[in-house]
């Protein structure tokens, strides 16, 4: 059975390489995977990374995310001192880390202390450019530190989730980050603090099955793939066609796992309302 269970990260990788076209050239055209229109990349960029024809939400860079969510100035990058190590001497991992570091790509999540419409927040933005935003020791540690800081300083936490799941190359350490992050959220939550998570395309595997499902309020971008196992694995296992829209945000909303679906262009305003009603100023 085991071979049936996994593979999903493989599929998610494929899935994302397809979608990541958006990050290539500044003046290029892109074909929207949803409406098939050819659109200027810069028009998409100006529109929150949303297709101007059909509102398909493209993946955007961490920098773009910060510009969308956070007020200018006073953005402090936290916990950058924690960087990945090849703990297990896992085949090819060391070289992969080296090349990513050379490109100055900084791990599967970046944490900022910043203001959102004037309200002080801690924000973690996952980074799919770093091994699919997978969670290894660094992602787990930074998230845990963020919640521990949030607990101590009574700050609201926001996470933009997108990830292929746990990072295989760090073996058991990756798996244990699921427990570690969840436990830190429990303490943070028991302290009466607000954690809002935004599920974006794709959020899967051990990330969905830990901190991404533990928000007091769980928002999702339209049409994002959100699940534990990948759709193709499930199809292989059960040998049936999957229902329309299976594992998409709208599906999760209907099934009771998401509080609201929010367009990226409305997100900052929505988060502001949420923060204010929880008495953050």
């Amino acid at each position, binding site marked *: *059975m085991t071979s049936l269970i996994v593979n999903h990260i493989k599929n998610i990788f494929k899935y994302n390489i397809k979608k990541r076209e958006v990050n290539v050239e500044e003046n290029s055209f892109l074909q929207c995977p949803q409406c098939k229109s050819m659109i200027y990349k810069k028009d998409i960029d100006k529109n929150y990374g949303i297709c101007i024809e059909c509102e398909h939400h493209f993946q955007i860079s961490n920098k773009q995310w910060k510009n969308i969510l956070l007020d200018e100035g006073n953005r402090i990058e936290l916990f950058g001192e924690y960087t990945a190590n090849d703990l297990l001497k896992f085949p090819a991992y060391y070289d992969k880390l080296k090349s990513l570091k050379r490109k100055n790509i900084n791990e599967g999540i970046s944490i900022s202390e910043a203001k959102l419409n004037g309200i002080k927040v801690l924000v973690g933005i996952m980074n799919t450019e770093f091994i699919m935003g997978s969670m290894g020791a660094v992602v787990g540690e930074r998230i845990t530190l963020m919640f521990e800081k949030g607990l101590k300083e009574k700050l609201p936490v926001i996470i933009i989730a997108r990830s292929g799941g746990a990072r295989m190359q760090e*073996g058991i350490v990756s798996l244990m980050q699921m427990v570690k992050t969840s*436990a830190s959220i429990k303490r943070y939550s028991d302290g009466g603090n607000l954690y809002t998570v935004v599920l974006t395309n794709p959020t899967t595997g051990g990330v969905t099955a830990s901190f991404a499902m533990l928000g007091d309020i769980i928002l999702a971008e339209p049409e994002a793939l959100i699940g*534990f196992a990948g759709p193709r694995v499930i199809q292989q296992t059960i040998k049936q066609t999957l229902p329309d829209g299976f594992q998409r945000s709208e599906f999760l909303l209907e099934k009771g796992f998401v509080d609201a679906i929010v367009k990226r262009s409305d997100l900052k305003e929505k988060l502001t309302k949420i923060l204010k009603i929880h008495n953050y100023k």
Partner: protein
Amino acid sequence: MKENDLIKALVSLNEKAKKYGINISQEMSKLEKKIGLAKSIRKYDRKKTKDAWDQVKLARNIERPKPQDFINVLIKDRIELHGDRYFKDDKTIYGGIGYFDDIPVTFIGTRKGKNLKDNQLYNFGMPNPEGYRKSLRLVKQAEKFKRPVLFFVDTPGAYPGIASEEHGISEAIARNLFEFSSIKTPMISIITGEGGSGGAIALSVAEKIIMMENSFLSVISPEGCASILFKDPSKAPLAAKSLRLTATELNKQKIIDELIKEIVPLHIDSKDGLSLLEKSIRKHLKEIMALNSDELLNKRYKKYRKIGF
């Protein structure tokens, strides 16, 4: 039984010889042939089981005792309790109350079959969300009545099916991790065979993790890892080795609290292994039952908190 006794004696002889630096492998072969046990012996040559992939295969051996067998031996006067109170009783999760020694405990195990029929009944050991929710319900009840919790884990992982996703397998696993991290009662998790990814870790939030020697705990199955990273499912043995997933390896890394030796692999004879496990549980239970709930929760938090950096 006679066969098992002979096997045990041979293995023990071989072990002792090795210990004193005497190579008796040739003589062993002859002895094996003589008593017609060549195949059996090879199955559990302890040197060979040091190889990660062989250990994975041993952990998955269909004749290996399953969590329900562990529970039925170690826990007395059991009462099985059913249902998640939301949607279903997931038969894959075997949960209830009973006595370990004279101590009332709550037990939670993943059921697996030793034949196709049972495996279908128990969904090949892969729980649905309802199973995890049942476990959470029973653990919260254990907390209320101040009973320690013993988990017995042997699962390829959570079930990848339509209903499983529809009913929020991610949420169910995450909820267990979240809630278990602050349950005010002692918890021990025993990995008895396969410890498959999120589906296993959702039953492994505890002060103490004990692993049987021929068990493993991994972020992903070796096959899955090989097929994704090495683009070749046949490289599962390499993946198994690279993932460092064996009990021995995890014990070395101090990820777990104790490794229980299987002088004889459990699928051949489980008596000694289970007896060692029983002693280990007794020892750890005594230690953690002496803690107050703050100490307990701090111990549990720190256990996972330190992993990574």
